């Protein structure tokens, strides 16, 4: 079902974990749909992403896209990181099954959400960056069990 690259990133995910004093954190997705991604960014004074970590609750594709997304943005400037789209993540993974494409969108959103958090904390604007749509805490409040 999955490409070798996806399986590789799923079984040996890169950059799993947390950062102690992150410059930005972004969490997207919701437990209801079965995917939550959280990305931590450490960004230096030149707006370069020094380090990046993630935690993901989700399927194989969700883990692999998070892992690949962190790899792709690491070392890049904030501006360059904005160019890491879901398509770029998918291509880097040699594709995803059609039903899993949303996982790569989630990875892009998670990066954007973390960048948004960074921008807000530092009072800057990043070209092309919009306020993240999905946030688990908003979704959770709507949920009634």
């Amino acid at each position: 079902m999955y490409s070798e690259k996806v399986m590789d990133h799923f079984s040996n995910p890169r950059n799993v974990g947390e950062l102690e004093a992150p410059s930005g954190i972004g969490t997207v997705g919701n437990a209801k749909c079965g995917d939550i991604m959280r990305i931590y960014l450490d960004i230096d004074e030149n707006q370069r992403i020094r380090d990046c970590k993630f935690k993901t609750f989700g399927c194989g594709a969700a883990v692999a896209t998070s892992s690949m997304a962190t790899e792709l943005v690491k070392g890049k400037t904030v501006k360059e990181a904005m160019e890491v789209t879901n398509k770029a993540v998918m291509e880097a993974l040699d594709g995803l099954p059609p039903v899993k494409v949303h996982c790569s969108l989630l990875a892009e959103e998670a990066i954007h959400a973390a960048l948004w958090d960074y921008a807000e904390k530092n009072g800057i604007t990043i070209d092309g960056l919009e306020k993240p749509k999905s946030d688990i805490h908003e979704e959770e409040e709507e949920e009634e069990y």
Partner: protein
Amino acid sequence: MKKIIYLDNAATTKTAPEVVEAMLPYFTEYYGNPSSVYELASMSKKAVTESREQIAEALGAKSNEIYFTAGGSEADNWAIKEAAEAYKDKGKHIITSKIEHHAVLHTCEALEKKGYEVTYVDSDEKGIVDLEKLKKAIRKDTILITIMFANNEIGTIQPIKEIGALAKEHGILFHTDAVQAFGHIPFLVDDYHIDMLSASGHKLKGPKGIGFLYIRKGIKIRSLIHGGGQERARRAGTENVPGIVGLGKAVKMAFTKMKENTAKEKELRDYLIDRVLKEIPYTRLNGDGIKRLPNNVNFSFQFIEGESLLIMLDMEGICASSGSACTSGSLDPSHVLLAIGLPHEIAHGSLRLTLSEENTKKEIDFTVDTLKGIVEKLRSMSPLYEDFMKRG
């Protein structure tokens, strides 16, 4: 192929070698069409008759009440659609449950589109259909009650005897999808007042693509397939002779060894449940502790997602299944787990392990040990677990 530990016997079973052996001559030696007149064909005809008798005996039914189909889904579709059609002058109301297999649920939904009304009765939090609610759902125009014998995901055994009695008392047809129960738990159709029953070969070590519908004599039901006179003209088409032979053999084996097999399975099942609940924290057992198929185990591991779990188990050669959305291709997790009241994220983290008597304690030990490591790894990657630990 690497060595595998097969723990997905509710999905399908390995065809027993004895079954394959019994089937083989009917491909190349006795290949005649059972409807033909010559000697060669009489062998096929005899084999079909014997298989039918075998099945009838197992159910305490008559052999002319057994109709071969291409599996459980077909039997479910036939029973529900064609009984609904045949009895529509009496009424257009059907009762089923929320935890049925899709072969029943989607058939009922299709009937709703054709103007039938369907009541989907709740089950309790263990996954047992609520008898009181079922009783209350009965109306003057109720023509059919269809409730599964045992659930394929969480293994709960339903109060079929009580439901059968209730249906009889009200003069309503009673169909049960016994795909997971037949050959695994003992019962007779008369004792349970079952009017129609679906079963499938590949869940009891028989071949895939063969099953049957039991239809009590005197029940009005339309033909499923029009054509020749096969299956008393109710399900036309040249018989799947090797499949029918294989099914008969599998049924014979299952019933001869039922006691012995289920005893082994239960022991393994309870050992597996005990170890997992003791050794893996934040885990729940879904389904009922006692009213449960001898080979079914279903857990939910909090904070992790089922598909990831399955892939990691597969890497270790362990075959299992999950009610997570990602494994079904839809966004929602299993309707059964939601029906017993599990929140979505707990349903996503479910794991079903279904055993056979061929599994060993060693395999179970390996599985539990592997599972512990995987659950730990996935939790260490999970933002839900992180939040939970920080909240304390």
